């Protein structure tokens, strides 16, 4: 990442298409460098959350009894906290850092995934194909993971792509509050926070472009979710 490559607070020009910030850093190159970080954190968070949530929720929905009861109480506990506040609390205790951010942000949508997977499996576990699978000698765990979970994936994935845009915004919000990854590293949220004073003095581009990127990333995930929803309407293969 280039530092001090231009004059400070230079408005967008051919040399610096996104302008420069108060240290003279090129906003475009910082924005691009931050993209790898923000996109990979978002994808990692969603993958982690959807995987854990699907396994947890489908096991609870399939086997029921005390495990299901315990699961629901834990989810209610998680839902009782305002999500961003919870994330801030945990990071304040655990300290900033890439992995901590991923785990904490993954915790926020987890109850939704667990509930969704649980409801899907509960509604399908008495379907005939599940009973037929038992009849040909499958173990209950096999019925769950080979037959019921694949049948529940579409709503989960559709939700995951919508959720990814929320996650992108949350990661940005934590960065803005200085609770994200290491201070100083290029991340859209922390870049906005760096540029917030400059907005008042007229240098809109310092915070504006990173903000636009968060918006574009969220919009991109929405497009993916639309595509998944369309594949359902066309009677796709899954």
């Amino acid at each position, binding site marked *: 990442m280039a530092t001090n490559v231009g004059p400070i607070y230079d408005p967008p020009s051919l040399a610096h298409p996104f302008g420069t910030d108060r240290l003279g850093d090129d906003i475009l190159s910082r924005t691009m460098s931050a993209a790898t970080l923000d996109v990979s954190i978002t994808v990692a968070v969603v993958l982690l959350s959807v995987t854990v949530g699907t396994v947890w929720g489908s096991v609870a929905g399939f086997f029921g009894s005390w495990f299901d009861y315990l699961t629901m109480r834990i989810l209610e506990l998680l839902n009782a906290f305002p999500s961003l506040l919870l994330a801030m609390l945990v990071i304040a205790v655990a300290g900033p850092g890439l992995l901590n951010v991923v785990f904490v942000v993954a915790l926020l949508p987890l109850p939704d995934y667990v509930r969704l997977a649980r409801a899907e499996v509960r509604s399908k576990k008495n379907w*005939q194909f599940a009973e037929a699978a038992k009849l*040909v*000698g499958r173990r209950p765990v096999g019925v769950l993971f080979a037959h019921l979970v694949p049948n529940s994936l579409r709503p989960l994935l559709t939700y995951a792509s919508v959720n990814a845009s929320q996650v992108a915004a949350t990661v940005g919000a934590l960065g803005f509050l200085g609770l994200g990854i290491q201070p100083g590293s290029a991340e859209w949220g922390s870049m906005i926070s760096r540029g917030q004073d400059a907005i008042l003095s007229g240098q809109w581009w310092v915070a504006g472009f990173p903000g636009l990127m968060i918006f574009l990333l969220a919009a991109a995930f929405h497009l993916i979710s639309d595509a998944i929803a369309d594949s359902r309407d066309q009677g796709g*293969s899954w």
Partner: protein
Amino acid sequence: MNASSDVVLDVKRLSGGFEDTDHQILPVLTDVTFSIRRGVSAAIVGESGSGKSITALSVLGLTPAGFSLTAGQIRFEGEDLLTMDPARRRKLSGRGLSMVFQDARAALNPVFTVGWQIADVVRIHQDVGRREARRRAEELLDRVRVPEPARRMKQYPHEFSGGMAQRAMLAMALACQPRLLILDEPTTGLDVTIQADILDLIADLKAASGMTTCLITHDLGVVAENCDQVVVMQQGCVRESGSCAQIINTPTDPYTKQLISDSRLVETS
């Protein structure tokens, strides 16, 4: 072979019912008793609500929620299924006894290809690799007379007609090589010509593999043409059981007589 090993399924004084809101059992089955000899094609006949399907589901351990058995025994090859431990019972399902449902398309998993599902069952019961399992699945589809098995393997259940799906279910049941195959109304809802095809197919497969079959139906015409042994049920009770010829020609029970005179058997014979 002695007399007891000659019997595949022996149901003795089986009773059960649905629990109502006051925890009272409303009886659905009362003292159901019958046995099925090895190698025969048996049938359980009765109208809707006679308890024939719930008897079959009890044998398979798939009773619906709220239903419980209150008394009786279900012996499969001499072992009581009701007191058997779950792991042993699971081992029996598929290999020992298997079932073909009425609505074959609902019994296939909508998200996987038919070929994948049959190959999957092959792999549960036979120690073979993926490729060999697919080859055997294709062979099975060919055996149940599905045209173009190689192409059909790659299709999803929604691309199958009712009759083709029922054939695929038969292929899946055959993949387990069960000793007793229960067929719950396998031809209801199919065209008459396809009904006849499927019944012929079942008879041929039975002859080739030597398995015992138990057909559950309301159609006495189907029974008269295809079965050796008949159990007639009404309102949760067995009215009469015996060989097919005896029951069709010289029924002793008034309900059986009624059933025969109401069916089209009399007109055709």
